[in-house]
């Protein structure tokens, strides 16, 4: 077995030093009835070539996003990741390091965490950010719990156009923790009256921007209404590239900002691993979940970085911790921070403008297809169309013709019949003129 360095003579010599007759003597504390004598019913070891063949064949059964005209979004987005990103994150010293508990020999990890926090705070327009969460949806759930801690109130008011999976995560976590959620019905025009649902019991209002359907909105009135009732405004986003063009949540009055960082530096991965972004106002820093990296000095006065404020965390505070999070998405946040550094101010803005321009072009082209309606007047790189055909059949038939057209909205809102003819369509910098032409041609075909 190539992964195991001990030889049989090594094992014998080690047993002799221990004073054990056989390896079984080391398992002496395991009750007899729980010991397995032989192997379980699974295949035995295979060589590298065999494993590559077997799993390669499995991979070959899937349609990768990059192999077809691809317009699927809904919380995860196909972007181009520069080759440098994957090369750097595969460096052994990043890839195979652990949580930086020994700062003297972990400055590489700590410095990039500090840079990541700064980038996220800048992007969202907030004071502080933590050093990555599992993903956007769990970050959203944590933000709602944090709002309860800050306000000591029990009810979260959710926008009806919050990503349904984010809503489900928040509802699930809240229900178990004993909090209330007012989820709101799906509203696709972006003008829902959230303000009317805010009352004295409200701890927070959660609004997605751009929302699940694509609408981009001004949140200032909602922020004012929330603050008037001493509730926090939580702004969520699933497409971080939007922050290159859209007014940041911090400038719209957000108290906590959460989002999905997958778009920058990270592959689609069929749903994970992703990286959650979490930022807040300075005054709430001690109520934040997850890890934080802070600046300090070493014994010679040199600037360095350490994990800090860990008295909020589970390994110190146990049942009084701000969350139970232990593992973060460190490597995904490294990918994010490298990609963001490559883009810089200029590249990130331009990436956003290309995304938006491509989406606008696509929307214009789709609007010319008979019977198709764009139902989101504002959007960034994802918008919603109403089609004369049931969305399930439409997407299915288009997939058969080699175009992955978008997300059937009712897949995420089952049981809402009014959504049966809606498709959320995403376009990014990877979509070419030819991709758009293919979309239009195939759409016309299946509608005819």
């Amino acid at each position: 077995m190539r992964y195991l360095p001990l030889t049989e003579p090594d094992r014998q010599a080690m047993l002799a030093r221990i004073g054990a007759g056989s390896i079984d003597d080391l398992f002496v504390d395991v009750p007899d009835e729980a010991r397995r004598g032989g192997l379980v019913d699974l295949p035995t070891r295979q060589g590298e070539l065999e494993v590559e063949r077997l799993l390669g064949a499995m991979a070959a059964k899937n349609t990768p996003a990059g192999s077809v005209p691809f317009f699927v979004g809904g919380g995860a987005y196909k972007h181009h990741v520069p080759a440098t990103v994957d090369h750097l994150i595969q460096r052994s010293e990043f890839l195979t390091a652990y949580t930086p508990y020994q700062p003297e020999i972990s400055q590489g990890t700590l410095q990039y965490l500090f840079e990541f926090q700064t980038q996220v705070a800048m992007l969202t327009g907030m004071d502080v950010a933590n050093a990555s969460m599992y993903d956007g949806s769990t970050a959203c759930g944590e933000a709602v719990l944090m709002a309860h801690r800050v306000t000591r109130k029990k009810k979260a008011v959710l926008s009806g156009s919050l990503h349904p999976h984010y809503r489900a995560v928040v509802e699930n976590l809240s229900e178990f923790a004993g909090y209330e959620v007012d989820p709101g019905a799906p509203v696709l025009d972006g003008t829902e009256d959230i303000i009317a649902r805010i009352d004295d019991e409200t701890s927070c209002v959660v609004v997605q921007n751009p929302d699940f359907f694509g609408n981009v909105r001004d949140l200032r009135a909602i922020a004012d209404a929330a603050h008037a009732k001493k509730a926090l405004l939580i702004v969520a986003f699933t497409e971080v590239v939007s922050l290159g063009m859209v007014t940041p949540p911090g400038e719209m009055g957000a108290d906590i900002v959460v989002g999905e960082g997958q778009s920058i530096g990270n592959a689609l991965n069929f749903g994970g691993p992703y990286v959650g972004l979490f930022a807040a106002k300075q005054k709430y820093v001690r109520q934040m979940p997850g890890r934080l990296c802070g600046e300090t000095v070493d014994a010679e006065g040199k600037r360095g970085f350490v994990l800090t404020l860990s008295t909020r965390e589970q390994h110190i505070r146990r049942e009084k911790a701000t969350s139970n999070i232990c593992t973060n998405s460190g490597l995904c946040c490294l990918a994010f921070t490298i990609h963001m550094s490559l883009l810089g101010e200029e590249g990130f803005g331009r990436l956003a403008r290309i995304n938006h321009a491509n989406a606008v072009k696509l929307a214009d082209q789709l609007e010319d297809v008979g019977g198709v309606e764009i139902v989101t007047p504002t959007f960034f790189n994802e918008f919603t169309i109403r089609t004369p055909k049931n969305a399930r059949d439409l997407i299915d038939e288009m997939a058969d013709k080699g175009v992955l057209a978008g997300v059937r909205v009712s897949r995420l809102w089952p049981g809402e019949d009014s959504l049966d003819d809606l498709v959320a369509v995403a376009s990014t910098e990877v979509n070419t003129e030819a991709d758009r032409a293919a979309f239009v041609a195939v759409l016309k075909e299946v509608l005819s």
Partner: protein
Amino acid sequence: MNKQGRPTGVGELGEAGRKTFTGNRGLAQEELLIFERDSGACGVDLDEPDAFEDRLGGNRRKNSIGLPGLSEPDVMRHYVRLSQKNYAIDAGLYPLGSCTMKHNPRLNEKIARLPGFADVHPLQPTKTAQGALELIELVAHWLKVLTGMPAVAMSPKAGAHGELCGMMAIHAALEARGEGKTRTRVLVPESAHGTNPATAALLGYTVDSIPATKDGRVDVEAFKAKLGPDVAAIMLTNPNTCGLFEKDIKEIADALHDVGGYFYCDGANFNAIVGRVRPGDLGVDAMHINLHKTFSTPHGGGGPGAGPVVLSEALAPFAPLPWVIERNGRLKFADVAEQVEEVGGSTFGRMTAFHGQMGMFVRAAAYMLSHGSDGLRQAAEDAVLSANYVLASLKDTMSAPFEGPCMHEALFDDAFLKDTGVETLDFAKAMIDEGYHPMTMYFPLVVHGAMLVEPTESESKASLDLFIATLADLAESAKRGETDRFAGAPYLAPMRRLDETQAARKPVLTWSPPAPAQAAE
């Protein structure tokens, strides 16, 4: 005269006193923050789109973000230099107990990056992702067989997320029995990971701590005294965090089940027993498996991991969304409660947006297939052998709080440092100067000045021997009163000891641009 290749003397200043203009020391180069390296360049080629009218409804960003601009070579150099300030398992032994730092096969990385896995969208039609669903089912099958459990929930994103999942399933099952409100207490041994009490508290449970016996295990009598109709569950780690197998595990499970509680097992240490013990045979109802530890995903500076949860018959019906089900010979996701009910389930809801850490599933599958059932068993045995070898070799030089063999980690305490003026922390920092990452310190809490060493199965005997000799030398040195070696350590790391108190007192969590210089008088 050409002196190339000839040895030269240290010179007048000596190595330590030699100052350089740049602050660099040869290959050890200082590196500014990325924000301080801003040159206004751009590291990507993207063309400005043709003029167009935006559809942002008047919500266009007006202010710049403040991001630095660097060329691709400058970004490359920045992160390469940062990487060189990190210790990593590929660079040396990383004996962090309870964290399992073992070899990370690069085959796993290669396969996880195949476009057929990495470039597949979670919401693309499932008929275009049958291979991805097959892979999830493959990993699920292995986990079920290896643990002897009938069901597994794949979506939890990490070990602690898995704990949350398992405890939610327990809560949901209790609700279904009409006891959701009356069972309010969760028993957690003193030696548990902090995530265990944090998880129980998150779900509104009262955490009731169980003391440990003198031999480092759950005090069964104390445990039994706490049993009652208000107990929802026990959260117990086995092998436990003292590196010991809980001998009385069956008795604990039976007594708990007799009063109607559920047994949550923290599976963080499953790597010690995989292939030799099936948790299902121990009476476990729910257990998370840290795929990254037992089935090897690189720790990546702290993540990502993955924490699937195996479930007993009693809890299987409550697994979170989505479930993978088969319809007309094709795999698909059951995304909502109604679809789950069709196959006899009653899910407690959704834990995360999509369906878990696919990238980690692929790595786990590659690792499982490479090792096979025989290799996994051998790996567990070698991990246990290595830990016992370290324990047996050092127990007389250092001090071990418990008798008998350990599982995959060897626990020492600070008794051997008594009256030497050297503390656990100093001892650990001195290991850095010897080229080792320190072991886990001050955990588990049940032992004074704990030092938990987990060598894992991927160290050779020669590597273990050098490690043992190094620790023995440090221990002897401490006992001889050579406190200088410890008090200021590390001396030879990229940085000297960092001031964590200052960082916490005056938190500086983001970089800010220097204040603009005052206008000249």
